[in-house]
């Protein structure tokens, strides 16, 4: 138990790096990522947990950064889109998004990529239905979803 004055220091492990951030108890992980650490890949689309643009991985599972209090994330492994690769490399999921035309405006893309990455870890060869279900909490207003689903299925190698 911590937090005598409300403002505490929280140790967050993000993309394999330890960060010590000052966090009022109500500060969300999304605010810390974007405003404090300059990790702007996670987007504020609704701040209500509906759109999925802020999705990050917590211990490998997709969660809403906007609904996660930063202080509650200490001790967990947080992965953002910036942490998927180094340099200019792409992961197989990212490469599939490129090749299948799964990106339009790109605002939903980091959340989609992370959700898909987590799915493929749990289920390496998902079919169309499994991919659609896994992505059902990530809104995309541009693509009609088809090309995103195709990209994830292809990244898994199933058809």
């Amino acid at each position, binding site marked *: 138990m911590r937090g005598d004055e409300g403002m505490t220091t929280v140790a967050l492990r993000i993309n394999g790096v330890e960060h010590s951030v000052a966090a009022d108890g109500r500060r969300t992980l999304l605010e810390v990522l974007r405003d404090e650490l300059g990790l702007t890949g996670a987007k*504020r689309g609704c701040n209500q947990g509906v759109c999925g643009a802020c999705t990050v991985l917590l211990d490998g599972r997709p969660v809403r950064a906007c609904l996660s209090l930063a202080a509650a994330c200490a001790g967990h492994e947080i992965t953002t889109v910036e942490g998927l690769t180094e340099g200019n490399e792409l992961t197989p999921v990212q490469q599939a998004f490129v090749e299948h035309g799964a990106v*339009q405006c790109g605002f939903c893309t980091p959340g989609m990529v992370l959700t898909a990455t987590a799915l493929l870890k749990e289920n390496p060869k998902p079919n169309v239905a499994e991919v*659609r279900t896994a992505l059902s909490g990530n*809104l995309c*207003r541009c693509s009609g979803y088809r090309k995103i*689903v195709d990209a994830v299925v292809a990244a898994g190698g199933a058809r």
Partner: protein
Amino acid sequence: MSPYKNQVGQSIPKVDVREKVTGRAAYIADLSRPGMLHGAVLQSPYAHARIKGYDTSKALAVPGVRCVLTGADFTEHFMGAFIKDEGPIAIGKVRYVGEPVAVVAADDERTARRAARLIEVEYEELPAVLTPEEALAPGAPLVHEDLASYVKVFDAKFEGNAFSCTDLSEGDVDKAFAECDVVVEGTYETQAQYHLSLEPCGALAEVDANGRVHLWSANQSVFRVQANVCESLGLPMSKLHSMTPKVGAGFGNKMEAHIQPLVVALALKVQRPVKMILSREEDFEMVRARHPFKIRIRTGARKDGTLLAREVETLLDGGAYADDSPGVLGYSLLMARGPYTIPNTRCFGRVVYTNKMRFGAFRGFGNGQVAFAGEQQIDEIAHRLGIDPLEMRLRNAMRIEEPWFGGQQVNSNGLAECLEKVREKSGWGRRARPSRPGVKVGYGVAACAHISGLLATSAIVRMLEDGSFVLSTGATDIGQGSDTVLTQICADALKVTVDNVVCATPDTDGSPYNWGTTASRVTYTTGRAVAGAAEDVGRQIKEAAAKMLNCPVGDVELRDGGFIGVKGSNTTLPYAAVAGFTHWASGGPIVGSKSLIYDAPTIDPRRAVAIGLPFTRIGVFSFNALVVEVEIDEVTGKATVARAWSAVDVGKAINPRLVEGQIEGGIVQGLGFALTEEMVWDGGRLANPTLMDYKAPGAVDVPYEINSIIVEHPEPDGPFGAKGVGEISLVSVPAAVANAIFDAAGVRLHKLPMTPERVLTAMLGAD
């Protein structure tokens, strides 16, 4: 370098795709400047009220607050695409719940938002008009007392709260209806739809030491941003430098102004950079939305299915400011005949002010609303006459030599092929009938046309020192991929691969004028300018090469992969050599340009009468046919689309995969419009301004099997024959779904969205 092949027609990955999949693409909310403050807005709690006074002392007392501006700090300057009726903030009175009343700049967003809530405004509530009918009632309160004196960019017909009234007709409608064997008549209603660009609107402004304002914002046109900010704040355009970061989609909501004038006003006041990003709720409540329509429509035909006459009357809720409404009204009437030969058509419509948020441009621009009505009537007539609905459309489809309603010549028309393609691919002739217990299955078809075009555009292509190129157009890529398509057009025209051309980011200081990324126009209109500018560069390259090779210009040609060749010989020069020659020896660096404005007349006065139409030169025509397979849950009435086949005549697909992306995305946004999305007002207050309560379709709510079929009837003056695809696939969706619901359940829905409640009520009523 890989061997050159034509760049047009290839599904090349988007030029900015790596930035986007890695999360490095920077949108407005991701930008930051040293010393930057954060803005927040106070919104009106009243639909209509006089502002008696402000008390900003509590807000100013909050530590970290740097500036508060209210309507009292602004002088009256007006902006508006068609009617200049809108200031940057409410001045004197508020006209809708959610309207900006005051703004704050503070050290951080939370402080700014908290301070905004502490601003006290004294109001005197006024009677409000919340529907078009209320607004048209005799003695109704006026939303704008000064409508008559506002600057208007067209010959507007207006009266009371009706700020634009338009008539468009051809032929002798009364006589034709008398000759019809079958006449169907009905009224239809469509709802307000929220754009839901996944990125909420925002802006960042900074004033430099010279007094120039540098402005980044989520936009569909850096030039419209410049015009709107300068008009509403009374600034010379030369003082404002408008730029764009990546844009998280548009669909119409970011074409005209949102909060850019307010952010600029704050930055001018505090002389520090100010960024303001709307919350999702604010974006819902104060940007803009699709117009609710009421449509009365009558269509008549002969026994053999020949359509003879149509009459349409529309009433649009315009909301509190005119915005793009006159355009939407006029365009909806121009489209109301549909893509058919109906020699006698009469349309009349009005758009009226109400005390709601403004309604404006949204993918489809009024076409989807009238298609929902008109395309159901085509089906009804077909049903009455025992004609297959797809066959009915083929029989009445406009022929290539026929002009559009109003008289404009149509130079490419792939409608019949679109209809035939969806018939074949969907297996229309052998389509299945109800198959599972508890589920009714039906198929519906609808067809439409949509324009691409409008207004001015320009392009500059510059050859760099090493023979590669920079393309500048001023067209904002809102995610649809125009940077990629324009790069392909430029590269192909110069016979180089796309990696030899870079597309510059729009910037009013450096880019040539572009009206905007709207009206499905960038590929066609800007593409023409790019092709023209590239051709200009090609001509100059040849001239320089001829000088270098000491031969007549007529003897040299551009060759694949970036070479100049001498005709009939193997002698070649790489572009780099030409670039070096022009930069360092002779002629000077090569710069090509092309400016144009779409100029084919919409109305032929020998055929048609048009009164109060706000545009005179609209664009070229793309065509679409759509078949959907709908399943209705008999228990709940919930309709879902299981499969869809959409054929679009795009002239030429510059990048087929991006074309498919537009078709698929438009269909899904159309499915939201057809089935689930609806902005609901509780009195003057929007009751569902959150994604919790406003439901757009997710991945499992829409069919996986959306079949995009590209049809190519080249537009003679389009770049490589291309015409637009940005909006058209959405237009047919509500109508096709409604027709499929009829096919499945025998009921006709006249109101959108077609919710489980409406479908079940209709089904139980029909039993």
